[in-house]
């Protein structure tokens, strides 16, 4: 009985929320309602205002207009502490943990348990360990957090949020770094939280996820509220239409290219562990890719697929060894600049740490990798740089108020477009795409797929890594699967299925 009472009560209502940053309206009349025991998906393209709305709810942005009610009481948050005190917890996309501290210390960060000013270490360790076990994570909580893989760290972050006993939980793309098994664990936790009467606001760009866990869906577009509907009544086509404002007739528009010649062939390629461990992260891998072809490289975390591309690109210098031929000519990976000079480009899987210089503006990021072109005799040609950036802005449909904006003020999808523009400028013959659509909204994803089609029709060879299975299956012409640094299977795209790939990926 109690369970039923707890369900379907309004926990939160935000109405008429408006917010602008230095004259630019980011949210206008946005609204969101959350009931107890529901998973409420907040959907929208990058830059639609989801993050801003969440930050207002979390007490990060305190200047806005509109009203927020928690448990039917009007609230006004002046800080993140106010929001936390009202029972709101946000699990951010970027981890807010300290890698150099132990797991237990991280979980109790800011709320350390103490006895007469002495830290009650043993108690915290025991509690942290129990809490993690509850969500199915059995690890040594006294070890440094940085020792664990990113996915484990993400689970710790989730556990930290749960430790505060909140009733309104916001999860901003919580699965972006999790493996499939861990995603399942997370969903189990979410189910438990629902049972206990919590309301969950969930942000994700993954369609499968939305329809697996959503009770209701609200959509924002360009800072405006578009609508709310139960997940069962809002089919995928309709949802995309709400988000993008137009119909996307095909989710994955891959055009088959005509047969090309071998652009890159790799034989017995091995990459030693960059941190010095004795086992190579890539061992004796051989493959080739033709001009105009998209080769998908599947693999779970730790399979070495990303390291394979980085190794060929020269990221690890001479730690990567093997016989590589570029259009029949022998090539040895040395440095990234050497790879770029030989027509290889790598769109890295983390644009914030390895892709872009966030503090520099759009123009300077766009020209960075091909700066020699823009500085004959060492003298920069700013006019030519701006012209080029302007050209890419139009061609890639980059949404930015001005090209002199720093890239860290752009949304994820637009940042990715800047990174793509940078690599187009190097005029690659072989383009490695490592998670090109991670954290990118549906509309921009579609644009990136169309770009891939355009590049292959120009004879560029693409090697694609993506953790989104439908994308991999639809966009690749051929798929190789890696497991623990070795290739375990190869399929033509017609023969590949999700099951086959997963099986090969797990060894």
């Amino acid at each position, binding site marked *: 009985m109690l369970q039923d009472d707890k369900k379907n009560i309004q926990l939160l209502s935000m109405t008429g929320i408006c917010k602008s940053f230095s*004259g630019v309206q980011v949210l206008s009349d946005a609204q969101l309602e959350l009931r107890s025991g529901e998973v409420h998906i907040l959907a929208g393209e990058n830059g639609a205002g989801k993050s801003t709305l969440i930050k207002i709810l979390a007490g990060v942005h305190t200047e806005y207009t509109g009203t927020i009610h928690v448990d039917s009481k009007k609230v006004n948050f002046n800080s993140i502490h106010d929001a936390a005190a009202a029972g709101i917890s946000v699990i951010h996309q970027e981890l807010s943990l300290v890698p150099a501290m132990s797991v237990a210390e991280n979980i109790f960060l800011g709320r350390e348990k103490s006895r007469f000013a002495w830290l009650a270490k043993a108690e915290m360790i025991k509690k942290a360990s129990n809490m993690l076990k509850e969500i199915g994570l059995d690890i040594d909580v006294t070890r440094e957090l940085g020792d664990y893989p990113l996915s484990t760290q993400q689970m710790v972050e989730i556990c930290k949020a749960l430790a505060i006993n909140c009733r309104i939980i916001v999860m901003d793309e919580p699965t972006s770094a999790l493996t499939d098994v861990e995603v399942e664990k997370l969903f189990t936790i979410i189910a438990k939280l629902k049972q206990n009467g919590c309301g969950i606001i969930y942000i994700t760009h993954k369609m499968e996820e939305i329809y697996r866990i959503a009770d209701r869906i609200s959509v924002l577009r360009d800072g405006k509220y578009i609508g709310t509907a139960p997940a069962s009544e809002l089919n995928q086509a309709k949802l995309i239409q709400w988000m993008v404002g137009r119909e996307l007739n095909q989710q994955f528009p891959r055009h088959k290219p005509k047969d090309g010649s071998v652009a890159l062939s790799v034989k017995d390629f091995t990459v030693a562990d960059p941190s010095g461990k004795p086992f190579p992260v890539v061992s004796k891998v051989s493959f080739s890719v033709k001009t105009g072809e998209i080769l998908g490289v599947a693999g779970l975390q730790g399979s070495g697929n990303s390291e394979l591309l980085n190794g060929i690109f020269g990221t690890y210098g001479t730690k990567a060894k093997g016989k590589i031929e570029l259009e029949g000519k022998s090539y040895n990976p040395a440095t990234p600049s050497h790879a770029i000079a030989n027509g290889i480009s790598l769109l890295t899987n983390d644009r914030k740490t*390895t892709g872009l*210089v966030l*503090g520099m503006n759009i123009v300077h990021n766009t020209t*960075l990798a091909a*700066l020699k072109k823009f500085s004959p005799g060492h003298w920069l040609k700013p006019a030519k740089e701006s012209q080029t950036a302007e050209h890419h802005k139009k061609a890639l449909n980059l949404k930015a108020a001005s090209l002199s904006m720093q890239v860290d003020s752009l949304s994820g999808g637009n940042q990715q477009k800047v990174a793509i523009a940078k690599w187009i400028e190097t005029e690659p013959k072989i383009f490695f795409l490592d998670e090109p659509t991670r954290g990118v909204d549906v509309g921009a994803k579609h644009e990136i797929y169309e770009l891939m089609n355009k590049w292959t029709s120009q004879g560029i060879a693409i090697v694609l890594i993506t953790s989104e299975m439908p994308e991999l299956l639809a966009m690749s012409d051929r798929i190789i699967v890696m497991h623990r640094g070795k290739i375990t299977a190869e399929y033509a795209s017609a023969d590949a299925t999700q099951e086959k790939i997963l099986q090969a990926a797990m060894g």
Partner: protein
Amino acid sequence: MKNGLKHSWIASPVTRALGALIIIFVIGLIFNADSAFFKWGTHRDMLRAVSVYGMLACGMTMVIIAGGIDLSVGSILALTAVCFSLFTIHRGINVFIAIVLCLCIGTLCGVCSGAFIARFRIQPFIATLAMMVFARGVAKWVSGGQKISTAVQQADGSYKYVDVPEIFNIINSKILANNITVVTIIFLFCLLISWLLLVKLRYGRYIYAIGGNEEASRLSGVPVSRAKVLAYGLSGLFCAVAGICQAAQELQGDPEAGVAYELSAIAMVVIGGTSLQGGRGSIWLTLIGVLTIGYLEKILSINAVGEDKRLMLTGAIIIAAVLLQRTKK
């Protein structure tokens, strides 16, 4: 829209840095003992006094934008000052050759720091700390721990006073109807070179990119090592220029010169608003920082404020200036 523009104008780092300078300037006009602030000579002397520091700050700006720090500037200044005095006063080497030699010595010191930082991945703080100690040692070794002045010891142990080489007087002179000192002109020249490198040349862009995100820069094919060595090498070169000027101003090469100058240079860069995190800043901000400290010192000395209070005030001003520049988020 108008509101937005106004806002961005107020928030620009140049405006904020200028704000601190203007406040100092106004204070100078208020506490204007003997109307000294209305005489150009006061401003000329202030510029002369900060020029040597300013040269060090130019190099420091490049290094800091590249995400590093250079603690060795004061020691390299002492080393080159000693060498320059030794070459010109004692050995009578051709002035032109002496200058080139000193510039090479300074540059070499900087290049060494840069190479250790870039090739062997030693932290800039540590590598330049080592260079700071090492260069000071070389300065003492070369000079035998003595000030290299116009009193030249003869074979029989007696001292003979020689004339100051002409170049010392030239550097010390005032030109343009006594309105500006040659040292200040040299400082402005250093500023110009730094600006050309940072804004107009490809490697300047590389320096910003490395300071902003070194790994992303490397993966974009930026020659990270070369750009770092260049930044530290230029810092060393400017130290040598400053060392030569220092020797000329003091009419001697003092192996103990330039102690704690690196801290003044860092303070000037930071007061200007260049972030110690790297990737952001500009040489003009450093000029503003140099002038801010210069005017502060001048005002305090005009009003005969003792060194004790001067130091306390300077410390307070550094904090105030940095707080003033913080963008409210």
